[in-house]
């Protein structure tokens, strides 16, 4: 018979306001095997933990039940506490009387009754608990960073700096991400390329970092410390190790009409291209959709011109498999498509552009060398209207319900730069709210208004109609309560940003959770903001939610420190609550192996005759405890009841159910 102690937490008023904690403790003391029960204001505090430790020693307890918050919150805390006085940590159970009881009930009597029932179930389970010893697994001391934007670059540099190897997988031909497309950065107005390209060079030159550009992750197996990742290296039809990046081919290629993604389609490139002069790796890539040689077999100009002999039209996609201990997700963002926003005439006029397109138009490396002209007639715009929150904070179908966070500041930057470079331009910014919570951010916004005389108007643009060479803008000014009609030369739309389309399938590969907006969720919104709930998966940059450059760099650094903390360990303590198969009951049907999401189950043929002749051979399931995550799918699927989980055995769960139904 176990000697069980029950500890009921008040959690301040979180539990105590709705649950009669004293009554819970008193009632549970009557349960068989319970020899001690008490309540305390904060069980997780040092005093609370000492209370548990003292009781274990004084009462010779063999099992402990804590009635408190979710085990996700503090199970680890309490297990550590009991282990400190020599009790096996798996002899402790947590009854969740906060999230699943006090927070969702209003009636004290009902909530108290439910808390007692939940506590009783936990006591019933402890009766069947057995001490478990966690195994150890080695850690592969190498990290994978998925996405080579500023988040991925910073994170890789920081991990490499600590002496660990890092691979970056980037789907574009160059690392650098969105920041390469940005002209200036707020609030200091320093040049984006000037601060980014040195980091790109650092990444390329760091001997601990390997870049897989033009590549994608196609499979993920394994678990924290021991991931096996399949990487697809897309054929670029240029031998990466031979190409010198001289760029001669990109000048001679006769196919000139390829939309240039680097400039968001505002100009064209050749079918063989280097995205921009500072690309890393500086290697040419052939766009197979446009290359005449690849499509018709007739051309071969680039191959003839290349003195290094780097062109290889027969190149195929390569598939690699690599081992990693940790995976960082830094897949970034994209502006949303604006096709559904007819009112702003985005698809009707080339002079209605998104902010990122405007960024290219303003940039020295952009289609016009940084001279701001209208895409339609190449005249300098005299009146520019900026529209904020296009698709952000929108609960209708074509929009996003969240604030994209960066638009207020970059719009302010654009408006300020326009006024500075072209002082005779009238600049209007239509805003719903101006959100500038950041160091020197509000000062920056006020400078735009006060020093640069940008017209900030509280209201929204209702429609934009192209008429002649003008864009008729109709908008409301809520402060003066009038409708405005502005003849604009350009309209710039601050499009909402969304998670990259590659994020959702990647989350499936990683079994990492996402929110409804396809942003990766953190293990804890406040206390574990750079870790995914999936162990060994870490989050950096806009993959986790909209954020600006300073915030992304901060998060990438935090993420790197978590990765380093993991890679610094020689061994990881595993989870002992894993599946095991009763070989005498197993009939080798393979059902469990088919449902196992982790590939933890294999089959072996064993001799059950107990004789030397081996006459009774049977095929039985065998679980690799290092790979098993204890999800329990196999225990449910097994038709013969041979599969069971340590710590969550069928017997334990049934006894909990019995206790609840008593």
């Amino acid at each position, binding site marked *: 018979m176990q000697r069980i102690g029950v500890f009921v937490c008040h959690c301040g008023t979180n539990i105590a306001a709705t649950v009669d904690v004293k009554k819970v403790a008193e009632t549970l003391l009557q349960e068989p095997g319970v020899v001690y029960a008490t309540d305390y204001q904060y069980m997780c505090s040092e005093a609370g933990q000492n209370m548990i430790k003292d009781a274990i020693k004084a009462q010779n307890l063999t099992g402990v039940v804590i009635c408190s918050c979710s085990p996700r919150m503090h199970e680890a805390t309490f297990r550590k506490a009991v282990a400190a006085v020599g009790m096996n940590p798996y002899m402790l159970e947590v009854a969740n009387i906060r999230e699943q009881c006090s927070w969702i009930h209003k009636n004290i009597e009902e909530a108290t009754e439910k808390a007692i029932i939940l506590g009783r179930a936990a006591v019933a389970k402890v009766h069947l608990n057995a001490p478990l010893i966690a195994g150890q697994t080695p850690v592969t001391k190498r990290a994978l960073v998925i996405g080579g934007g500023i988040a991925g670059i910073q994170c890789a540099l920081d991990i490499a700096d600590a002496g660990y190897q890092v691979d970056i997988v980037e789907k574009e031909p160059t690392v650098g991400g969105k920041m390469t497309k940005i002209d200036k950065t707020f609030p200091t107005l320093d040049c984006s390329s000037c601060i980014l390209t040195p980091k790109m060079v650092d990444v390329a030159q760091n001997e601990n970092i390997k870049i897989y550009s033009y590549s994608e992750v196609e499979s993920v197996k394994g678990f924290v410390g021991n991931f096996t990742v399949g990487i697809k290296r897309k054929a670029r039809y240029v031998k990466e190790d031979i190409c010198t990046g001289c760029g001669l081919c990109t000048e001679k290629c006769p196919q000139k009409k390829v939309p240039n993604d680097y400039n968001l389609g505002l100009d064209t490139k050749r079918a063989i291209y280097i995205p921009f002069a500072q690309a890393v790796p500086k290697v040419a890539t052939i766009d197979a959709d446009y290359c005449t040689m690849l499509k018709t077999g007739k051309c071969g100009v680039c191959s003839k011109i290349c003195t290094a002999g780097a062109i290889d039209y027969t190149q195929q996609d390569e598939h690699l498999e690599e081992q990693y201990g940790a995976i960082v997700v830094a897949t970034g963002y994209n502006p949303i498509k604006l096709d559904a926003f007819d009112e702003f005439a985005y698809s009707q006029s080339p002079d209605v552009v998104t902010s990122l397109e405007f960024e290219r138009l303003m940039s020295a490396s952009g289609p016009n060398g940084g001279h701001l002209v209208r895409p339609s007639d190449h005249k300098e715009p005299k009146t520019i209207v900026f529209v904020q929150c296009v698709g952000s904070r929108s*609960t209708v179908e074509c929009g996003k319900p969240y604030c994209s966070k960066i638009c207020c500041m970059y719009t302010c930057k654009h408006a300020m730069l326009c006024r500075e470079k072209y002082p005779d331009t009238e600049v209007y910014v239509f805003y719903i709210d101006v959100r500038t919570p950041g160091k020197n951010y509000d000062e920056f916004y006020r400078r735009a208004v006060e020093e640069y005389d940008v017209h900030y108007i509280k209201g929204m643009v209702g429609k934009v109609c192209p008429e002649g060479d003008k864009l008729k803008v109709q908008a409301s000014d809520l402060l003066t309560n009038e409708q405005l009609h502005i003849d604009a030369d350009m309209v710039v739309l601050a499009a909402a940003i969304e998670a990259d389309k590659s994020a959702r399938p990647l989350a499936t590969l990683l079994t990492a959770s996402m929110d409804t907006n396809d942003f990766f969720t953190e293990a804890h919104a406040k206390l574990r903001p750079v870790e995914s709930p999936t162990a060994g998966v870490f989050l950096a940059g806009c993959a986790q939610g909209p954020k600006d450059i300073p915030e992304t760099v901060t998060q990438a650094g935090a993420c790197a420190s978590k990765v380093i903390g993991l890679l610094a360990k020689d061994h990881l303590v595993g989870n002992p609550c894993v599946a095991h198969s009763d070989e005498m009951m197993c009939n080798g049907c393979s059902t469990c192996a088919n449902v196992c999401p982790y590939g933890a189950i294999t089959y072996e043929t064993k001799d059950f005759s107990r004789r030397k002749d081996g006459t009774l051979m049977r095929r039985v399931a065998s679980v690799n405890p290092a790979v098993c995550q204890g999800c329990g799918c196999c225990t449910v699927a097994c038709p013969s009841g041979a599969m069971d989980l340590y710590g969550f055995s069928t017997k334990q769960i049934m006894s909990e159910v019995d206790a609840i139904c008593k």
Partner: protein
Amino acid sequence: MDNMEISKEIQRISGVNPRKCMRCGKCSGTCPAYDQMEYHPHQFVNLALSGKIDKLMESKSIYTCLSCFACVERCPRGVEPANIIEAVRLWKIRQQNQNHLVADQIPAMLDEEIPQQALVSAFRKYKK
């Protein structure tokens, strides 16, 4: 009924929850009849919320609204300002009495030209 109660009733009839409004003003930015109105679409929502619905009741704006539903179409929060005007118009009609449709009278009024939808909506409109 006091103003606040009428406002609540207007919210009920129109199905509009004015608390969803984030005051961006896109409705008024898009309104083609803006200059003919004393109160503008964003104000409809605010008046319905703050219980000053009597101002809207007395205003000609409710008849200058074209019911073009541009504000409904463009609102990023799905607030539907034009539906408030529809509801206020209904409210006014209901105050005029004798507009109620009695079920027994319908057979005499039946006309093959009348769309069935009109009958159904008449019942819906005049049920109080």
